[in-house]
């Protein structure tokens, strides 16, 4: 059954997918920083308020993933910011996250060399989001 996009339930399902992934377990070894995703509001897409996804990732596993405010996500070590539509494109495989970052469609804040070192891990994180069946607010 589809889960409401960027809800607490979605965050839990996403965390489960990350922790099920053998690829992430291997590629994320040594990672010890928090990552915040800022999903910017797009009222015309029925996404009226910006949200934040706060991810506590450690050494190849997700210790916690929860939904909070954009301000919560902005406090993380790494912050990736994009409007709702872009995140939807990432989660539905229409936009590759690496390409999105290179093109500036996803804005990254944090130590670039560190995140580039973990390209494979971030690609797998994206794959994990695509495995969660999502109900999108603009498709109701």
């Amino acid at each position, binding site marked *: 059954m589809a889960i409401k996009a960027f809800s607490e339930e979605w965050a839990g399902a996403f965390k489960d997918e990350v922790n099920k992934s053998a690829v992430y377990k291997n590629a994320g070894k040594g990672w010890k920083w928090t990552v915040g995703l800022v999903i910017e509001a797009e009222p015309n897409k029925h996404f009226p308020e910006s949200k934040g996804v706060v991810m506590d990732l450690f050494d190849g596993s997700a210790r916690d993933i929860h939904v909070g405010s954009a301000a919560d996500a902005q406090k993380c070590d790494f912050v990736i910011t994009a409007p709702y539509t872009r995140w939807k494109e990432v989660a539905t495989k229409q936009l*590759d996250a*690496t*390409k999105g*970052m*290179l*093109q*500036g469609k996803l804005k*990254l804040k944090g*130590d*670039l*060399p*560190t995140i*580039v*070192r973990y*390209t494979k891990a971030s690609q797998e994180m994206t794959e994990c989001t695509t495995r969660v069946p999502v109900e999108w607010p603009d498709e109701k």
Partner: protein
Amino acid sequence: MLGGLIDANVKGRPEKQGDFEQLVARVGIWVTDIDEGVTLDFKGGKLVVHNGLEAKRTITIRADAETVMSLSNLKIGPLGLPVYYDETGRAVAGKLLRRKLQIDGLLPNLLTLNAVTRIFSVQ
């Protein structure tokens, strides 16, 4: 992003300073699957990043986004040479052989390419 990566690398890794101070070259990077690119104009301790490919480039790297990221994940081995025998290195070498990674101006500018790789590498 690529300019930012080099900037962070040079500031955060003192061992890259020497190459950065000495390198004078115009390096084009064209990301084939997004049809966008940059020219990194190294001017001996200064870097100017231009959108798109500028004229008079020393070398031009053409590859998809994933391969461009792999280039920055090449390890640097003895004598400051990129390592092509580990998993990442073999993948990059394989793409070069299959022409999925093309480097115009490679042969006469091998030393320049090695210096760029050292500056670019996050490993």
